[in-house]
């Protein structure tokens, strides 16, 4: 081998910040090739993807609207990932949060109380947490792998949502469409900026970023999460309980995903539909990694991923590019990030082995 990979004595702090940028650069480079293959001018396509969607104030606000559920879900997931708890069912927890949260409005549609929305948010968090609590219980009690159980529950949650909107929750005045009645004002997320869809949920997402940052940097539970993730035996040695961390991270992640789901249905969607998320819960996995599992990183990563959603729509309208490009793009970012991560712990060296000639 001409190149050899050598372990660094200590991980490179520079690379921790540099690799997401390297990954992005590589992704842009690869998408140039992809656009060529699709027969589109790459410069034009990149413009449509990354610049055009931010043209106006409204479009700029849409960036935050799309970023909100990603941010909430990714913050929750990242705390779990740091503890090596692989909750990949945020999509299901988001769905359950939306269901449980909006049930308050569905069953008490006449309520005009100012407490309705806060109660819905809390119920949303509880719904998501409860749904995430199932894998937590199965893992701590039966050692069942949380990756598989949390994912299976995504399908179950989405099917359950479908049962509701096709059945008991269907709007009687809705011409038999599978959707609930639209939310009343007291069940709606307040709009922060008139003329846009920017809503209160975005503030909740910012709050989650700050709270998680504080928690991970300065509290004992954050420290425990990090220790259990990096060296579980050292955690046991210090007296930290692995089971407690499994419960904590899953409930935390589920609650935030639940809030994300509720803020979607009582925000931009304004009613319960059979499909309430274009896969935010899965894209949040990419966001979490791209943000280096750090709350501040996640803040920026979720904006970027939100941009790819908007860019995908713009490019579809203006260039006729398939929407699926967004998915490929998101997948590539994560791939390149994981690949360039090697630079954090290893360095490449030219192989300089010489042999003395006989």
């Amino acid at each position, binding site marked *: 081998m001409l190149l050899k990979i050598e372990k660094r*004595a200590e991980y490179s702090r520079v690379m921790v910040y540099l690799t997401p940028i390297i990954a992005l650069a590589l992704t842009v480079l690869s998408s140039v090739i992809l656009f060529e293959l699709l027969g589109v001018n790459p410069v034009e396509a990149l413009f449509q993807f990354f610049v055009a969607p931010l043209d106006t104030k409204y479009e700029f606000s849409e960036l935050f609207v799309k970023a909100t559920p990603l941010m909430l879900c990714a913050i929750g997931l990242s705390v779990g990932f740091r503890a090596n708890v692989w909750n990949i069912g945020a999509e299901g927890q988001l769905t359950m949060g939306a269901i449980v949260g909006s049930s308050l409005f569905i069953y008490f549609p006449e309520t005009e109380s100012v407490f309705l929305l806060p109660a819905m948010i809390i119920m949303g968090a509880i719904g998501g947490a409860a749904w995430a609590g199932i894998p937590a219980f199965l893992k701590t009690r039966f050692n069942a792998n949380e990756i598989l159980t949390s994912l299976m529950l995504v399908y179950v949650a989405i099917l359950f949502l479908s049962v509701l909107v096709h059945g008991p929750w269907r709007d009687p005045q809705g011409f038999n469409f599978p959707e609930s009645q639209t939310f009343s004002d007291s069940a709606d997320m307040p709009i922060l900026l008139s003329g846009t869809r920017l809503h209160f949920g975005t503030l909740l997402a910012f709050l989650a970023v700050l709270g998680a940052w504080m928690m991970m940097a*300065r509290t004992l539970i954050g*420290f425990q999460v990090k220790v259990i993730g990096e060296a579980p035996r050292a955690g046991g040695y210090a*007296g930290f309980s692995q089971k407690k961390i499994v419960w904590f991270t899953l409930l935390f992640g589920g609650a935030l995903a639940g809030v994300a789901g509720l803020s979607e249905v009582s925000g931009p969607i304004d009613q319960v539909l059979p499909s309430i998320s274009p896969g935010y819960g899965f894209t949040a996995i990419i966001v979490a990694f791209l943000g280096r599992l750090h709350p501040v990183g996640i803040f920026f990563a979720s904006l970027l991923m939100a941009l790819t959603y908007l860019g995908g729509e713009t490019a579809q309208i203006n260039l006729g590019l398939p929407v699926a490009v967004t998915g490929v793009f998101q997948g590539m970012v994560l791939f390149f990030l994981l690949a360039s991560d090697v630079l954090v712990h290893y360095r490449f060296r030219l192989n300089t082995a010489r042999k003395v000639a006989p």
Partner: protein
Amino acid sequence: MSDSGGGTPQLELRGITKAYPGCLANDHINLKIMPGEIHALLGENGAGKSTLVKIIYGVLEADEGEIRWVGDLVSISNPHAARKIGIGMVFQHFSLFEAMTVAENIALGMSGRQDMKALENRIIEVSNSYGLPLEPHRQVHTLSVGEKQRIEIVRCLLQNPKLLIMDEPTSVLTPQEAEKMFETLRRLSSEGVSILYISHKLDEIKALCHKATILRGGQYISECDPTKETAKSLAEMMIGTDLRAPEHHQAVKGGAVRLKVRNLTIDSDVEFGVNLANINFEVRTGEILGIAGVAGNGQIELLSALSGETRSSDVEAIMLDGKSIARLNPKERRDLGLAFVPEDRLGHGSVPEMTLAENAFLSGYSRMDLMNSGFIDNGGTAHYAEDIVKKFDVRTPGISHTANSLSGGNLQKFIVGREVLQNPNVIIVAHPTWGVDAGAAAFIHQTLIDLAEAGAAVLVVSQDLDELFAISNRIAVISEGRLSVGRELREITIEEIGLLMGGTHGMGEPVETPHVA
């Protein structure tokens, strides 16, 4: 140089050099082994012995230098090539597959296809003829450490090696088992097989080897005839300076019992683990109790029962200063004054990728009071970490560097320091100087002795009998999950300990020492 023997060496190394980032593991090493010679490669931890033999066996590639095999220049690019020309190797950390049978393991260590039936017969034949009996169908994880080593040796012997490399073979054996292995090696030598014998145990090198090459800090120091050297002169060549043995201390007579373990019985939760059966002992203030034993005889289980990582349902099983701690978790035990230095420094005693400050916080946050109204007290933590670094001579550029950036000896000093500064009443130390350089080892031994003299009770679990004899007041032996009665140092010989390690139980009846209230 002692070239007087004449003839062509079986193996000759010239100028072997291998560099790792930030460290020159082998710096122009020369070595010559004649046919039938038992040649010691002597050096302390980190001297470059393992790197050198891995180069000979083709696991690593040298950056520079040449290898001659019976006079011919050879390039050994991988272990298959090494085996092909007749080099066999017995690894210190065995290259065995636990979930497979003895025969499968041996087949894997041989190149090409084997007929399993024929192989099984040969295993039985060869292993019996060399006094290393093996059952081909046994699963490896059911075997003792000594038996596992036999697999490695037999695996080499089946390929009729001209050179056998043995990396620290006796570190896992009882003295009696080691003596038996020496007989096998002497017989191989008389049959013309060269043996490269890696060790840092001077007595066995004097007893077994014809020649010795000494390495220190990656450099070739000298070649000598060990039978003509004294243990002291060998040690000086190996370490470079002459070392002061720790001053032996006398246990305070009639000190209060601090740690008392009664009828501790726990089923292992580790895969292929050992169950603890009816363990009894006590450690008094001012005393160092050593627990000897071959690895894998229940040490891991005993240590985790004492630290609280596994818990006993029997409330009376473990008492600290008269209080039951059997059901407490490690943090609660630590709050009551129990400190603990685990065997694995990286990943158990510390979090490898976390900074020294964070690693100080890891076990010290409660007893050192490093929380401030619900938040981590970063200032206090840094102060505590700096204190450890200063008082325990930890060589590091700073406390913001990660644990895995430290050398083994420095990290061990850091962990011991972290526990000692918590002012424990009882400290439990597992393999305190395993893989640690001589300087750090002496420092750690002295620290433990000082701590005992200051009134703590110290429990040391180690495989290294020299170490236990150097610092303990009493020694007990663990074997197959049972613990022998602790005996005063002057009442017990190495031979007796060896027998106990081999499972001749002088155990059973629990000790009832009169209580001194």
